[in-house]
């Protein structure tokens, strides 16, 4: 009778331990690869939004505007790349925006989002994001929102506005 109680518990515990140990091992193998892949993807995205730059340097800035997570400076002075995070409709949206040294947007792009598919998800697509290219802080208002996805569009614009705020801060500091 006693065996009936102990054996199932012992087997279950053993299985749990073995599985967890294997997971820990695989995690230790894959975690660095995942990290490297993420970094590579981020570097690729930076080159994409500011192709004129020959390399990037992380800027050490204090008191960034709300949506700006990090700023990278182009080594050849072509401009700046802003890593942005903003609350969209379905959760956090991660964006990246490259601003030229003359204060116009080169490219902006969504990295990850969880907006409603078919509506807010359109902010990640070319017709919407290409509208930003060439805009300055003053002409940002000309960007048309996506009908039915006002919150996602507003969030996108807010993040880019904050990127300009950070850009102004950098220019003032110079």
């Amino acid at each position, binding site marked *: 009778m006693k065996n009936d109680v102990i054996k199932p518990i012992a087997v279950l515990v053993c299985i749990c331990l073995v*599985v*967890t140990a294997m*997971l820990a091992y695989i*995690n230790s193998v894959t975690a660095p690869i995942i990290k490297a892949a993420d970094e590579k993807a981020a570097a690729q995205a930076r080159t994409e939004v500011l192709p004129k730059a020959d390399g990037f340097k992380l800027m050490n800035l204090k008191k960034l505007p709300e949506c700006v997570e990090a700023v990278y400076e182009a080594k050849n002075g072509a401009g700046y790349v802003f890593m942005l995070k903003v609350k969209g*409709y*379905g*959760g*956090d949206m991660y964006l990246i925006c490259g601003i030229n040294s003359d204060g116009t947007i080169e490219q902006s792009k969504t990295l990850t989002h*969880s907006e*409603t*598919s*078919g*509506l807010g998800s359109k902010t990640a697509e070319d017709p919407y994001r290409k509208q930003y290219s060439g805009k300055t802080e003053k002409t940002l208002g000309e960007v048309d929102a996506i*009908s*039915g*996805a*006002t*919150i996602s569009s507003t969030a996108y614009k807010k993040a880019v506005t904050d990127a300009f705020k950070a850009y102004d801060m950098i220019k003032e500091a110079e």
Partner: protein
Amino acid sequence: MTNLIIILFSAIFINNYILSRFLGICPFLGVSKKLNSAVGMSLAVIFVMLIATAVTWPIQMFLLNPQNLGYLQTIVFILVIAALVQLVEITLKRYIPSLYKSLGVYLPLITTNCAILGVTILNIDEGYTFVEAMVNSLGSGLGFMLAMVMFSGVRSKLEGADIPKSFKGLPITLIAASITSLSFMGFGGVIENLFK
């Protein structure tokens, strides 16, 4: 506050678990034949979704994340949910037999329901706070109920309808689900503009 209302309503109408996220299709097709079983099943789902979120959110935030054990999420969540369902069943049976009578039969079916595991993982993925996560779970459960109850009506009509033989049963139910999901897409812009 507006934020919470938007989360609630978009979970019910726009990101409806059954009609737009495709989670919990099995009970949707299996248990939506009769109105009372559809309601019973949905109530049990709402109940378990809320409890599961209340337990898994703190586990992730205070136990797994600080220890860098985020990768154990799937395995921990499914075990916690399975244990929780058992626990709820025993507790209800012992202390609130009347509630157990109406919900009890549905509880064991829920353990392997992807809607429950889905809502707990999504709450973490979307970076919700505890309150937001609970509201999202409630909305998701209510959305599940809405689709289930609507469908029990549709299906009882379909039983008597004269449809091609090959479409009888599951196929026509799926086609009907397709049309309903199409109409739900119409809610898309409405909610976010209502509470702007």
